[in-house]
């Protein structure tokens, strides 16, 4: 195409226009992957506690909480897609969709929402990130990564094989993956984490009431525990690693085929074994950790 322009050396603006048009056509034919993009810049009023529903099947959704009572959407989407958006001050629905039966257009959206709003977002091959929202968040992607920074009042986050990463301490947390990894850097009073085979890791803390469930994924509990923590881990074959806090009286009930670490003796089925650390007083408060696994091992680590 470039050679065409140079060799044609148009003598008149008419020929220059035709050469450029032909060049553009050749580019479109030879480079079909370079689809044209359309820009987006829309806004809707929304009450502070209103709800926002976002659909984007491929690309990315970045959700940012702000202190205005409105929703602003910027970004781009591939030509052939269609932006839709509407609703009222209590609830808005928006997204990008493709023609029925046609290809899924990629869209990269930045959606600013009132920080206290209720946010719901779904995608397929979509990376979803959330920051600065303290209302409720319910997000899910299939193959894209999901990342949440901050402390929503309630957080529900799901992926199938994307990586799920949460940094912060939601009051209520429910996080699920299938094969994707799940990392929670934070703590909170009530959380449920689950996977099928994805690795689950908790860091930071302190953890309050937490339920962790997996079939074959590894579980790493490295977060601090509250003095009254209640952590339950259930796995079928996934191994479990628990960092025992240095200064928190802790009682570990291990219903697993094998426990290793330090001077802990191995546990044989079927009797669950209770292990106590840091001298919990009888009847006193202690962090309770219960690990049940059909055939996964439990490994205890010393807190550094």
């Amino acid at each position, binding site marked *: 195409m470039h050679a065409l322009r140079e060799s044609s050396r148009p003598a008149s603006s008419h020929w220059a226009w035709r050469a450029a048009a032909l060049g553009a056509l050749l580019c479109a034919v030879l480079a079909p992957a370079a689809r044209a993009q359309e820009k987006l810049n829309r806004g809707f009023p929304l009450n502070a506690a209103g709800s926002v529903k976002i659909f984007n099947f491929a690309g990315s959704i970045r959700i940012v909480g702000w202190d205005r009572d409105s929703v602003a959407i910027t970004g781009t989407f591939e030509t052939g897609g269609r932006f839709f958006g509407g609703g009222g001050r209590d609830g808005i629905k928006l997204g990008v969709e493709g023609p029925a039966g046609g290809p899924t257009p990629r869209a990269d959206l930045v959606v600013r929402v009132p920080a206290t709003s209720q946010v719901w977002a779904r995608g397929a091959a979509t990376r979803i990130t959330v920051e600065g929202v303290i209302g409720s968040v319910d997000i899910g992607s299939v193959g894209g990564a999901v990342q949440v920074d901050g402390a929503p009042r309630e957080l529900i986050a799901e992926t199938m094989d994307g990586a799920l990463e949460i940094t912060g301490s939601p009051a209520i947390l429910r996080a699920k993956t*299938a094969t994707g990894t799940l990392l929670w850097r934070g703590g909170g009073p009530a959380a449920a984490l689950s996977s099928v085979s994805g690795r689950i890791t908790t860091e930071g803390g302190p953890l309050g009431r937490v339920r962790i469930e997996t079939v074959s994924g590894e579980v790493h509990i490295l977060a601090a525990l509250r003095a009254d923590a209640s952590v339950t881990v259930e796995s079928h*074959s996934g191994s479990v690693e628990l960092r025992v806090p240095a200064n928190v009286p802790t009682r570990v009930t291990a219903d697993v085929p094998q426990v290793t670490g330090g001077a802990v003796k191995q546990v044989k089925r*079927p009797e669950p074994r209770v292990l106590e650390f840091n001298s919990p007083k009888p009847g006193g408060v202690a962090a309770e950790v219960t690990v049940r696994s059909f055939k996964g091992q439990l490994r205890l680590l010393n807190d550094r």
Partner: protein
Amino acid sequence: MTDTELTPDERRRLDERISELPESVEPARDLWPAIRARIESARMRTLPVSPDATRTSATTSVGGTRTQSPRHSRTAQWARLATAAAALVVASVSLTWLALRGGSRDDGASAVAATTTPGSPAITSAALATFASYERSAADLAAALEKRSARLDPKTQAVLERSLRTIDEALQEAREALAADPSSAAYRSFVESAYRQKLDFLRRANDVAALRGA
């Protein structure tokens, strides 16, 4: 980086490293239960759960030769994985549970006799009824998912299939352990846990498929 041939000395050093590679690396987990489940589910294709189960694969005629759509063969495969266990329960709940103890030489009659020996514990009928209920729910969800599976891209289908397989393997292991020790509350609990995870996953998978059709 260049792609030039190695010098003889480099070749010798590489060959030494290669010779040190182990011939054998055991898998991180025992894969036999999964393999056996697939072999057995292939055997059980002739046991329909419902009329829909007999139409689990889509075939097309091309020039007089029947070919199977790869997309549908894959979805049919995991649909069979999900419904094979249900087929066991529908056929005969108690005999099926007892038959799981027998390994390759399943002999339902002798297994029944063994567990009806006086003093021998048995899985309670309440527990069996609960498991049958789980199986029916799983079969319903799997059937619903299969109808929507055409909307899913191959990568998502592969993820769903792999996860369902992981869950079914776990369920089979737990069921076998319980069949061998019917009085174990722990094993019963693991079976229930596996069923709950299966139902939860099938519901999530249906949500994913529904989203694609939205």
